[in-house]
């Protein structure tokens, strides 16, 4: 048999082509496998990351439920599906592809441990995250006069004392301030830790004074700080043990309603009176008087400037929460929840972050609580009437003239609904 050299060359050539094609296919295949592997890993990592991040809202759902539970049932925790087991109360809820298990312990300062479980992508295993949260009863009333920055009391003769509107032996028959029943339970405290954080001047303080760590109190001129017995002794100065440098007042954020309806009003010439009943109301400029029958909330957007003999009247059983966004607010000479034996707990003023200035002018009689953590407060005038009964928390405070301030100790006992988070740790 005779083999043609042409066919040998042809078959050799075909072999080379096949080899090259195999090499190219191999390289391409390898590249493709690598590419798919990289994409697959990237996809798995992204999916796992999404699950990991999704666990946090689930953890927070558990914390929210625990907070809602302790707020609604502060004394009885074994309700609403919560169970007591070996030292803590717990509940478990399913949500979407996962569930959370949350425990509650320590009634005086509740500790919440929330653990969320979510199914890992393409797996039957769970990814879990755990957070431990400590909370404390929310109390924006403070200990008397409290400020984040300085307190200046360089008036003529300022008085700060306390009473208890729930105690007939330390208030009048209506639960109002009575100078003959006064107590020495007020605290004037600044969180500031610098020299002269609190400047007392000639003030008479029936209670304590405190600054932040490292702070100091300006030397008294003719003032007195201390107990009722110390005041009765006629001694001038600060009683031993009645000044400290441990002030650390909390200033939690304010949770305000977003909006409300227009309030009904009665006009008389150029003046008007808002008639508030149960509900949330809002107004741009507030220059008129307010009469409250029920549990009312009023949002003030742009202007707050009121005065009058009965500028704010709250009927028995009524309550008013004011949320003020106006940059400046002014209480003129007049009475605010003072008539009818009003209680400080029933008038609460919340200064939102844009509310940076607040003033009292003339002989005011204000019975209520002011919490304005971004505002400087000026108290001018005073000397006649009750001036201020309740509590005051602000960024900085200056008392002028002969202002009198009476802290209502009942506010500390009542607190306010809800809790604030004091520590948050992911375990």
């Amino acid at each position, binding site marked *: 048999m005779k083999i043609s050299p042409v066919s040998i060359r042809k078959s050799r050539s075909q072999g080379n082509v096949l080899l090259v094609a195999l090499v*190219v296919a191999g*390289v391409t295949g390898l590249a493709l496998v690598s590419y798919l592997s990289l994409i697959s890993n*990237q996809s798995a990592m992204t999916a796992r990351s999404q699950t990991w991040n999704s666990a946090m809202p689930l953890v927070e759902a558990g914390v929210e439920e625990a907070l809602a539970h302790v707020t609604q049932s502060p004394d009885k925790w074994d309700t609403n599906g919560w169970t007591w087991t070996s030292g803590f109360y717990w509940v478990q809820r399913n949500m979407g592809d996962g569930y959370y298990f949350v425990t509650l312990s320590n009634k005086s300062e509740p500790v919440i441990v929330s653990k969320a479980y979510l199914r890992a992508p393409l797996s039957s295993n769970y990814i879990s995250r755990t957070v431990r949260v400590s909370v404390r009863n929310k109390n924006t009333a403070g200990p008397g006069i409290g400020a984040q920055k300085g307190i200046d009391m360089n008036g003529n003769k300022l008085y700060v004392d306390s009473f208890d509107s729930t105690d007939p032996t330390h208030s009048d028959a209506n639960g109002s301030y009575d100078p003959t029943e006064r107590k020495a339970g007020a605290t004037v405290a600044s969180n500031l830790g610098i020299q002269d954080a609190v400047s007392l001047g000639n003030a008479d303080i029936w209670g304590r004074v405190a600054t932040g760590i490292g702070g100091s109190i300006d030397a008294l001129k003719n003032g007195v700080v201390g107990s009722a017995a110390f005041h009765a002794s006629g001694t001038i100065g600060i009683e031993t043990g009645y000044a400290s440098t441990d002030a*650390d007042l909390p200033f939690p954020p304010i949770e305000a309603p977003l909006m409300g309806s227009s309030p009904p009003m009665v006009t008389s010439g150029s003046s008007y009176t808002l008639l508030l009943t149960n509900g949330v109301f809002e107004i741009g400029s507030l220059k008129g008087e307010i009469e409250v029958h029920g549990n009312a909330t009023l949002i003030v957007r742009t202007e707050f400037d009121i005065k009058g003999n009965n500028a704010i009247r709250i009927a028995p059983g009524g309550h008013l929460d004011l949320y003020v966004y106006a940059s400046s607010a002014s209480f003129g000479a007049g009475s605010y929840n003072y008539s009818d034996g009003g209680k400080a707990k029933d008038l609460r003023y919340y200064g939102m972050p844009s509310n940076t200035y607040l003033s009292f002018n003339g002989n005011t009689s204000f019975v209520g609580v002011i919490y304005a953590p971004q505002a400087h407060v000026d108290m001018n005038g005073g000397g006649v009437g009750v001036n201020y009964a309740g509590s005051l928390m602000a960024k900085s405070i200056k008392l002028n003239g002969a202002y009198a301030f009476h802290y209502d100790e009942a506010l500390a006992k009542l607190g306010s609904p809800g809790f*604030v988070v004091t520590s948050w740790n992911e375990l």
Partner: protein
Amino acid sequence: MAVGVGCLVMTALAAFTLYSTRFFLTLRNCVDLDGQARHAVDRMSQEIRQADRVISYDPQKISFAMGTNTVTYVYDANGKSLLRYWGDRKNVLLSGCDSARFDIFMRQATNAVYETFPAATVDNAKVVQITWSCSRSVLGTKENTESMQSAQVVIRKQGK
């Protein structure tokens, strides 16, 4: 003829290798940026959430009190990196970072506007926003390898 075909095949192979290498580098950079950003967001959001408060702030450096410790995040513009300091310990959270900045806000809503937070000072900061842009180069160009990220984290602690 065989030489010609061989040259064509080799050219095709070289082109394929070049483009696939470039493609893989781009992809690797994307994966690297993604992983780096994921790790940085996770670390920072976890720490900021549980911080006690902001101690000091400027747009390129922010410090938080965490119990008795301090954690600081710094953008190093010269080194193009976002650094984390925990006491004396230093970690590089992001490298190849063209820009990064921090912003602080208060927690309360602005007047009648939902989820818009007013600017804050160190004393009242409750929301921290982190924004950065990182990139990688492939053969000297930044094509398809830029990653911009922004996150708002709320300090959960409200009171003492």
